[in-house]
């Protein structure tokens, strides 16, 4: 059964367990800056917004890369970086409409969530249930998009406010 990741901002307490879990499973250490999932935290309104690759259908990151270093798996939507080609221009960071891409603090290559090959490690760490790994269905796809819109609307509001 195909699965998908539901990401619910309203249930997020901003604890960053997901980010730390990600840096642990990917690199054997703890560093919020190396998480493929990031929590944008606004302390003054006690808000946490999860930002993570959505394996989206338009994938503007791939086309934006001047090095041609990004490729996408047709079946899973997962983006892969060819580190030999990547020259860390950061075009993908700006191109991502879900603000999900960060450059690795050491290698400076972009980091993409790969859903841990079908068993996302972060989900186990999210006790409040803000991250859920559910069976894919039309209804769940709709839910995922609804939750994503809510996060992106909030993100835009915050950026507007900051500007």
């Amino acid at each position, binding site marked *: 059964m195909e699965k998908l990741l539901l990401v619910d901002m309203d249930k997020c*307490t*901003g604890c960053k*367990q997901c980010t730390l*879990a990600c840096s*642990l499973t990917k*690199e054997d250490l703890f560093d919020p800056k190396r998480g493929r999932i990031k929590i944008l935290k606004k*302390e003054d*309104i*006690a808000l946490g917004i999860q930002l993570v690759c959505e394996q989206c259908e338009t994938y503007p990151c791939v086309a934006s890369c001047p090095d041609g270093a990004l490729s996408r798996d047709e079946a899973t939507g997962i983006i892969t970086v060819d580190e030999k080609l990547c020259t860390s221009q950061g075009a993908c960071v700006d191109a991502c409409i879900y603000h999900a891409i960060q450059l690795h603090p050491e290698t400076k290559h972009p980091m993409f969530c790969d859903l841990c090959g079908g068993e996302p490690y972060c989900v186990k760490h999210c006790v*409040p249930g803000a991250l859920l790994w559910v069976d894919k269905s039309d209804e769940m796809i709709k839910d995922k998009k609804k939750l994503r819109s809510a996060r992106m609307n909030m993100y835009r509001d915050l950026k507007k406010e900051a500007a």
Partner: protein
Amino acid sequence: MYGHQGKILHVDLSKGKTWVEDIPEEWRRLYIGSRGINAKILWDYCKDPDITWEDPRNIIIFAPGAVTGTTAPASGRTSVTTVGCTTGLYLKSNTGGHWGAELKYAGYDHLVVHGVASEPSYILIEDDNVEVRSAKELWGKDIIETDALLKKWHGEDSRGLYIGPAGENLVRASSIHCSLFHAAGRGGGAAVMGKKNLKAVSVRGTKPIRVKDPKKFAEIAEEMRENLRGDSGAQGLHEFGTAGSIAAVNEMHAFPGRNWQTGYTENVYPISGQALNELGYLKRRVACFGCTIGCHRYSEIPKGPNQGIASGGPEYETFGALGNGPGVIDTEGVLLANEMCNRLGLDTITAGGVAQWAIESYERGVLTKEDTNGLDLGWGKIPELLATIEALAYRKGKLGDLLADGLKIATGKVGHDSYKWAVINAKGLEQSNVETRSAKAYALAFAVNPRGPDHLMTETFAEFGSSPEAVDLIEKLTGDKKWASSHFTDFRAEIVRWHEDCYEITEALGFCVFTSTAAFGVNPDNMTRLYAAATGIEMTEDEMMLTGRRVCTLEKAFNITRGATREHDNLPWRLMNEGAKSGPLKGATNSQEELNEALDNYYTLHEWDLKTSWPYRSTLEKLGLKDVADHLDKHDLLPVE
């Protein structure tokens, strides 16, 4: 280094100098981290009793735990240690939020601040770059404004720790705030920062934390996380916050009201976690760094003239101290008082404690309008309560100045037996909202607490037996489930002793004490294994618990240098002499006789002298504290064996 970053950052405000030291390897085994190593540093620098809280030689130490910054659940807490302003004794206060983890990512386990700055200053830490900067633009600003300016200057990802106007004005009820709404609240640590002209510490870090055995570490962290996921106490804390227990505590006639004159309040619902959820005040459930429980609240008034006023909390203690205590059985009334304390940088427990005392003093005619800035104080009067809080933070008028020095000094000034309704003990701290007359382990824990009578040096929540996990723990400690009732005086010393050690190692590692002494997913066994996986330092569970005992003894020794004896281990006059008004233990007190028996048992378990309450040389040496014994010996502070 594994687990710890291995570095102590020192900043001397007098000399404008900073330096970094390695944590001695031995300390990681003897004191573990955070509260434990802080106690050792404070002893080394400040054991001379001439160093009062306001002396430039007093230091203030901030430290996340040995596993802070990892996936160990709820391990993001920070201990703050100094010579306290309220009691003049040892002060450890502990805060949640996200600042401590950031300090660790900047590469430091401890920040030690020495001296006094010549002008208002703040410390900026960005990895190896450490600067003391002018805080001219921050001085006078409230907590919200201060955080906003620091983030504007140093980035949205920077994390702040700061004091508000109350700390600047050396108010004993002031609290050190962290990530806006979290606080090292008790004991006036913020006044120590104020005295040092230190407004804030802004931190940003980029250094990863490594553990010795990542696979094993992850397994043990998962065990803890799953324990907590299934723990009824942890679930309740997430759903309703700390204030979720108020209705149950009230049913036990143990929810202090009207300055501890009542333990039961009709219709307590408006000041409960359930009301926040159900009446539309709860905006979000919030977690400290790395916490899977998420007990913190962010609440907002949704409509009416105060629409849009929002803040962190209120917690159980705040609904007690600023709600039931002053008789404000009104959700919005407490939200307003709480928001004001969070903004001005006040500890809601002490702010509420002094306000209740003022109301009762006014009611008795001991204070008049001339003393109260013209306020007609009374139970349940919200505008008067808010005006009192504002006066307190700014030392406004006669009332503000009187209350700002805390009840130990205020009762001395006012006289007229006003100490009898000041809910402080001999050490001088305002008691947190636990009805110790019907909770006998709490009573002992509060009496011996080195910083004064409250629940945040040793929580003995298990004695209520209010969850299956709590009952199991009491059975383990006493041999029988039947002792899981707070009304018994039997085995209370044993219960306190175990909790003291467990609580200390919990804090040393950086865990929230709710994980091990309110919920029970984290325990000495899995903490010992986790510490080994994190650092490579192998110990037995008994050796780990012994580090807790070592630190508790060192904290005790610190107070002995300040003249503390058995007489300081007592409870507020009201609770020792006036009977509880209602409930199953109606008429019960924390009498001197009852307390004496508990203290004897407790000192015996510690191997301390019964007459003075002081540790013997042999006790100290057994704990590896020979240098402490020698120092006490030199000053005639060792009891005869």
